[in-house]
């Protein structure tokens, strides 16, 4: 078991470096940079600035210098916001995190309940409804559903605020502030939940269906256990084991911010910063942020394997 973890850890390191190289290489392909987009600079002033930021050195060299300071925690300097990238991200990432964590909790609880029950009551009207709902949720373009919800709840019914984190111009603090942000968060959370609930429900449903057909479920029934115990103790634990690893895959999603949702709701999250830095060609931010997300994904994969090995006795004791 320890040997498996070690091996996976080494693999993770290799992938981390590979990813960082490819991301950096992608950026190097971008002709021009923040300085070029600033047209009122004289050519040779621009040249000086580039030298200052080391943008004129060959790609490989720039990669290693970037890697060098990245390992020391210095991810470069946001040219647009004139502040360190890490502090910039730190300011905005938590706004995205709150929405994402609520959406995660909502998605997982609903998906678990609907998935499990639609598997138990297969071919019932409930199962039919859930299957239809799953297909619809998986097929909705994220921006379309956001716009529709804003139209229905924000514009037509006017019961929910539709933009920003707080009402424009309000300076409420403490509890009132929290309450206000909560109101503003309702629509984004619902939309994020709807977007991710489809595949997760289907995953739980298929998992349960497969487990219910196993021999040990028949043995449990043959032992005279209550149907409730058979389903929620024997079947559920087996169906949930692989699901735990899925939790680890959600890790990047918590911090990546929903770019489109934040754009439509102009929610001051890290997703908008990302979009903004694309149009302003503020590459250090984009570079650092994409690298940050990739690391989270890789760590997520690694955690998923380790958790699964620890949780499933068949692997843990090998």
């Amino acid at each position, binding site marked *: 078991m320890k040997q498996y973890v070690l091996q996976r850890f080494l693999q993770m390191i*290799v*992938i981390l470096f*590979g*990813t960082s190289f*490819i*991301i950096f290489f*992608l*950026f190097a*392909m*971008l*002709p*021009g940079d923040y300085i070029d987009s600033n047209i009122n600079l004289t050519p040779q002033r621009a040249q000086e600035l580039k030298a200052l930021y080391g943008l004129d050195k060959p790609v490989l060299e720039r990669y290693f210098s970037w890697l060098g300071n990245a390992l020391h925690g210095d991810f470069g300097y946001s040219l647009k916001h004139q502040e360190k990238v890490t502090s910039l991200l730190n300011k905005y990432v938590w706004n995205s995190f709150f929405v994402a964590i609520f959406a995660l909790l909502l998605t997982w609880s609903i998906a678990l309940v609907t998935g499990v029950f639609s598997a138990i009551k297969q071919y019932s009207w409930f199962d039919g409804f859930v299957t239809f709902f799953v*297909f*619809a949720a*998986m*097929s*909705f*373009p*994220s*921006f*379309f559903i956001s*716009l*529709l919800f*804003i*139209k229905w709840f924000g*514009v037509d019914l006017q019961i929910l605020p539709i933009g920003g984190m707080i009402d424009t111009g309000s300076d409420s603090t403490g509890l009132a502030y929290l309450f206000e942000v909560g109101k503003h968060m309702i629509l984004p959370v619902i939309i994020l939940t709807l977007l991710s609930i489809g595949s997760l429900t289907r995953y739980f449903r*298929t998992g349960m269906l497969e487990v219910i057909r196993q021999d040990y479920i028949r043995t449990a029934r043959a032992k005279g256990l209550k149907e409730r115990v058979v389903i929620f103790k024997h079947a559920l634990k087996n169906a949930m084991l692989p699901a735990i690893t899925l939790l680890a895959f959600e890790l*990047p999603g918590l911090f*990546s911010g929903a*770019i*489109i949702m934040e*754009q439509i709701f102009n929610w001051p999250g890290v997703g908008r910063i*990302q*979009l903004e830095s*694309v*149009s302003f*060609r503020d590459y250090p931010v*984009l570079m650092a*942020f*994409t690298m940050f*997300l*990739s690391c989270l*994904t*890789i760590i997520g*994969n690694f955690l998923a394997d380790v958790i699964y090995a620890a949780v499933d006795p068949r692997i843990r004791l090998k």
Partner: protein
Amino acid sequence: MEIQNTTVNKQKNKTMVKSPSLWKQTYRRLNKNKLAMISLFFLLFMFLLSFVGPHFSPYILDRTNIADMNQAPSAAHWLGTDNYGRDVLTRLMMAGQISLTIGIAAMFLSIIIGSLLGAIAGFYRGVVDMVIMRLADILMSIPGLPLLLIMGAILSEWKVPAEYRLYIIMIMLSFVGWPGLARLVRGQILSLKEQPFMLATEVLGLSDRRKILHHLIPNTVPLLLVVATLNVAGSILSESALSFLGLGVVPPTPSWGNMMDAANNFMDFRKRPWLWIPPGTAIFLTVVSINLLGDGLRDALDPKMRR
């Protein structure tokens, strides 16, 4: 010496009839699935609407005419007109052409790259397998949308003319799509190679070429077909998201995605829903039909594949 079906059964004794090809049997099973058939017909309708529809529409795509700007849906303009006076329905049909073509083209590219690399990794194992799979791991660890954003930015940097932009978007989508596919195909090849009937091809002394063409690929095609269908749905969604953010298909070429950014200015959004609701609905209905068709196809092809 041996009767296929004993007289005890009511079924008549099948003589020299050639049993229908597996594909016919699959189609027959698919036919029984009403939902999948409805989706199939809807998709055909969408194709006709997008590729044939524009010829029947009285309005030429790009001709702006300020006179009838921003008209609500009327007899003349079934879906009204936009703020350049262009007929929304015609633009919707043209946009359909673009979005569907990109979706399918991106799928084909991903399938070709993915299954080729997956098959090579799965069949020849060793270093080749390690390299391809690590590359796939790396690409899959870069989150999809940010990667597309970056590539979209590269596109606008290089000031790529509109029509070439389409092809590059296809390449971008397949660049993000192929790793997942390669891993699926590799997994399928590995599990097939463990099957006794593949061991039999070794015992019979069949050549590698024959093993791959006659035994491995026919058994991988069902999975590929289902994955391809679902991949088209994914590509359409990604393309429309990119275009909505202005990084995918850029006006004047219409795409369901960029038609939606009409909703970005508040006036159009509140007053003229016919500008952005039809393209959104078109994407949704097309994608839902593709997903339903893909699911129906999976059951029809191989009931065991019910993942």
